[in-house]
């Protein structure tokens, strides 16, 4: 990429690069972040009212690589969201932001999605049982088949239901347990991720 010589252009290029790393955050927050960084850079780099070239370079270098700064913002944001209410929804949103940054985040998102889907399936089956007791259940499709079907299924015609009304307490506790476990797993991963990011950022200038 062509490197601009003008200090003002260098600053704008830097901020554009930070912006490109902040795509997962809402626009008003991004605008606020960029304005604060711009204000910091201008105040540090202006000596005697004019932008000095060497001081601008030093200022940008002291701030750190633009994508690194952006990912710190995203990491802190993920952390704040997840810690603010610790509900499945906020954890999932936090992990979703992280998934856009790295493969690890994507893997954690996949595990969390599967966990929440399983949890929700148990719950829905338990809730639907009273309304349609003959169709909702945990079915085996035959004596020589071990396949299990949870929920409403046409297996009812030729299969056997295993749990009966026990589906309600078992579904509720398994559903609740799976959702709780997934939330804790998500939070645990987010905390580890955030610690690694910030440590990386701190070490940056001393490398």
């Amino acid at each position: 990429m062509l490197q601009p010589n003008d200090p003002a252009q260098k600053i704008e290029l830097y901020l554009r690069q930070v912006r490109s790393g902040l795509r997962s955050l809402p626009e008003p927050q991004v605008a606020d972040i960029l304005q604060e960084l711009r204000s910091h850079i201008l105040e540090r780099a202006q000596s005697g009212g004019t932008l000095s070239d060497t001081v601008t370079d030093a200022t940008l270098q002291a701030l750190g690589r633009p994508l690194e700064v952006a990912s710190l913002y995203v990491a802190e944001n993920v952390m704040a969201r997840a810690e603010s209410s610790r509900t499945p929804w906020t954890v999932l949103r936090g992990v979703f932001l992280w998934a856009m940054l790295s493969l690890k985040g994507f893997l954690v998102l996949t595990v969390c999605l599967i966990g929440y889907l399983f949890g929700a399936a148990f719950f829905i089956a338990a809730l639907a049982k009273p309304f349609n007791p003959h169709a909702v259940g945990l079915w085996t499709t035959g004596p020589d088949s071990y396949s299990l079907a949870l929920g409403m299924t046409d297996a009812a015609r030729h299969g056997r239901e295993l749990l009966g009304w026990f589906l309600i307490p078992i579904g509720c506790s398994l559903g609740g347990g799976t959702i709780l476990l997934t939330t804790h797993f998500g939070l645990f991963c987010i905390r580890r991720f955030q610690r690694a990011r910030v440590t990386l950022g701190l070490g940056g200038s001393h490398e």
Partner: protein
Amino acid sequence: MDKWEVQLRRGCLELAILASLWPGRLYGLEILRLLEQDSDLVITEGTVYPLLSRLKAEGLLDSEWVEAEAGHPRKYYRLTPVGRRRVAAMGRIWSRFSASLNRLLSRVLKEEK
């Protein structure tokens, strides 16, 4: 820098930022200058702003934009009542903790000399 030292500095940074805001409102660069001057928490400047944004999201800090003579507005931070209680509690824990650690370490450092 030693990995342990990086972790230690990182752990203290949050407390240092909150403590720097105890007397009143400051903007980001003032906090940075204060940290450089009053403590040897050498920090990459780019880590402070994201941390400030999280502390704000957690309700420990409040912020407002103020027009400055310099021509560009400054974002000032101040401690919220929750933030004040938090930094006071963190300070008490820290001073108890460091006092006992210093007692232990005084023997190590004396013999090393």
